[in-house]
């Protein structure tokens, strides 16, 4: 994959860290449901065979030289997509929780509404997806925090199943939260008066491996994201430093 092919070209990006057990199936599912769309796995310096398995399944791989965290990893994909001329990018997590059958719906909503971001949401309509109790509480808390900031409700602010168009891609290539990007990215878009929509999606338990989220990390997550949200509200754009991560 050297350049985007066509004016409406879509790229699916899959950030992955040590997802050897799941990444092959994730890539195969994407290729099955959106056959002509290139799939780019961004490897955040995995210590297992993630890169080899992803390539064997038919994905292109962007291997990072050292661990950047989820935001840095996703932003690398956005930057490459922007440079290669893609019009739309949809992010799918590498652990198999996102259902590739929902990709066409996200793309269709991006195209039909012209909004800058479409979030695959578990809560737009009842579809059997469930979250843990702590995560559920966190989601409700951030819904309340974000409602006045965004000026409209967002039902699933922590969803990583997200599609963006080229306008958002341009912004995210320059400035993107490094650690826990989902919620802060919404505020980044709001600062530019960009629009987002949600479409119902189904999410599954991860295909392999274990989540690294612990109660302590959850608390750190809440504090970190809250701070990030308020910093983004107050942020002075000033003169951008070249290549700044955001």
């Amino acid at each position, binding site marked *: 994959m*050297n350049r985007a092919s066509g004016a409406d070209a879509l790229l699916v990006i899959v950030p992955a860290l040590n997802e050897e057990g799941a990444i092959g199936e994730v890539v195969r599912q994407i290729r099955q449901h959106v056959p002509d769309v290139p799939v780019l796995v961004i490897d955040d310096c995995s210590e297992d065979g993630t890169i080899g398995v992803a390539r064997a399944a038919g994905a*292109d791989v962007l*291997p990072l*030289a*050292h661990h*950047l965290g989820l935001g840095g990893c996703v932003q690398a994909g956005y*930057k490459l997509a922007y440079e290669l001329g893609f019009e739309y990018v949809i992010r799918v997590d590498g652990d198999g929780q996102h259902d590739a059958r929902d990709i066409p719906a996200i793309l269709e909503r991006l195209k039909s509404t012209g909004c800058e971001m479409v979030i695959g949401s578990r809560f737009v309509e009842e579809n059997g997806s469930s979250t843990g109790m702590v995560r559920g509480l966190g989601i409700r808390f951030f819904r309340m925090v974000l409602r006045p900031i965004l000026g409209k409700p967002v039902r699933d602010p922590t969803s990583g199943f997200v599609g963006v168009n080229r306008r958002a891609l341009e912004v995210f290539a320059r400035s993107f939260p490094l650690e826990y990007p989902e919620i802060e990215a919404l505020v980044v878009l709001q600062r530019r008066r960009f629009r987002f929509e949600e479409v119902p999606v189904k999410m599954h338990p991860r295909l392999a491996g274990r989540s690294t989220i612990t109660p302590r990390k959850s608390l750190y997550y809440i504090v970190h994201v809250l701070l990030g949200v308020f910093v983004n509200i107050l942020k002075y754009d000033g003169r951008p*430093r070249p*290549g700044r*991560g955001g």
Partner: protein
Amino acid sequence: MDSLLHVTAVLSVVLLAMVLISLRRAHIRVEYSVSWLLAAVAMLLLSLSRPVLDAITRWTGVPDSPLTLFLITGTVFLVMFFRFSVIISHLRDDNVALTQRVAMLEYRVRSFEQE
């Protein structure tokens, strides 16, 4: 109370020596050593010149001179730590941008080689 000032003076000399040795061994860059050197020299001068310290104490209304010295020292170090946090944040941003750029260039080289 004078003994506290003597301890501070000794600590300043130790800090000064540490910074100079680190500079000589190239463990710290000159631009990052300047603020440490200035802080150490300021601490040393204040702890050795009681009249100046007493004048600052009277002017600020702090109860006694050693406390004034520690307040000044604490403030200087807080400012320095903040400055270093800013520098570290810049370095982190640069590091992320470089890692992404290298990955993208490697990706494109690989793509061209495969064609």
